[in-house]
């Protein structure tokens, strides 16, 4: 045949290639393809897990932020309430203190008044006794009635002056 074309040799080449193709496919191509597919699957799985984790993280972050906002609002509310309660308590305490102070003052004034009255009474009694004693003394010394009256009046006047002081 022209160009040295030989049918038997063509078939021998075909046989050679069929053996090679089958061998390479079974020994090399399929195992490597299988490995590549497994690896692809593994990384796709990892990627999917990563995506899911990211999604979950984002969700958790959103939840956390929402909770933070809620907590902040709650804290703010509690703070306001506490401030109000503290203000009320302080006011009540001050009012009580004022009332107590007023009572103390009132009691003290009353005590002072009582003491003054008592002192005055005591003083008057004492003075009366002294006067009587002095009068008796004078009477014993000077038997004049006029002089006794004059002394008595003078004493009364002086006593009144002392009292006013």
């Amino acid at each position, binding site marked *: 045949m022209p160009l040295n074309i*030989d049918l038997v040799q063509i078939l021998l080449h075909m046989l050679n290639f069929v053996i090679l193709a089958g061998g390479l496919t079974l020994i090399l*191509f399929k195992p490597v393809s299988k490995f590549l597919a497994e690896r692809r699957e593994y990384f796709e799985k990892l990627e999917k897990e990563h995506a899911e984790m990211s999604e979950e993280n984002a969700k958790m972050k959103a939840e956390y932020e929402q909770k933070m906002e809620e907590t902040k609002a709650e804290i703010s509310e509690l703070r306001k309430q506490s401030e109000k309660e503290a203000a009320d308590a302080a006011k009540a305490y001050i009012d009580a203190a004022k009332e107590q102070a007023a009572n103390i003052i009132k009691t003290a004034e009353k005590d002072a008044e009582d003491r003054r009255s008592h002192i005055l009474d005591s003083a008057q009694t004492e003075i009366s006794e002294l006067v009587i004693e002095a009068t008796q003394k004078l009477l014993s010394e000077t038997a004049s009635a006029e002089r006794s009256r004059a002394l008595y009046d003078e004493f009364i006047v002086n006593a009144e002056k002392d009292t006013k002081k």
Partner: protein
Amino acid sequence: MDISMVEKKKKGKGKTVFIIVWIALIAGLLAAIFLLGLPEGESESIKVIMKDGVLHETNRISLFGLIEVNPGLISAYVVTAVLLLAAILIRIFAIPKFKYTPGKFQIVIEKAVEFFSDMAKTNSPHKTGFVAAYIFSAGAYIFFSTLFELIGMQWITTKGNPIALPAPLADINAAIAMGVMSYVVILGAGIISNGIKGGLRVLKDFSLPISMSFRLFGALLSGLLVTELVYYFVSLSFVLPVIVGVLFTILHALIQTYVLATLVSTFYGEAVEPPKPKEAKASEADENAEKS
């Protein structure tokens, strides 16, 4: 039954079918070779060295003492043996140690497989499994068999002369075998996928095996001739011819591998493409009518 079990069973069945078809093909080809018988005598002698380089008619090699063949066939068998041995070694020693974070060697193997798988997926999106394996094998064969001539392996011809084994595809019989096989694969895929219509669709590209064969043969031959010319004209230089020869060979190996793989996957993709439904066809026809 579990879905994964069903898939595994399906895969196992597919593998068994593949092995049966493979063995049947080998047996059929062997039978055809022996039925056709051994050629009688030797073809006419040639006088021009270049002609022998092209046609391999003078320097022939005995194949197991049964038949005299072109040196390209011996090259093809040597390449196949080396490739299969390398594949077995890789399968036994390298693949079990493959890691999800690959090393350099693993990357090379993975890239080779991925390159052809991706090409099959791109050009034949409907069915990719078989064509990916086919173009991987064809690509490996063309690439390494073209590089094989760089080794310059010596062999003894039937006349007792030593000869450097050429690239297998520089032999037109190898190129025809590759072209015809590729066409048969495409035709078979068309028939299996789409029945007679699919087969007819492929048959209309009857020039495909011829163009594939002669493209391969022509490319390898032109490389050989150009290299020979460079060797001739710059024979005084001892650097340039070597560089040019090596570069030409490597470029040929890469380009021819890419071209054949692309062509086969593209035609395969067209052959296995499911036919469009009638409604879609009718609407397309209406659109075309409106446009016109």
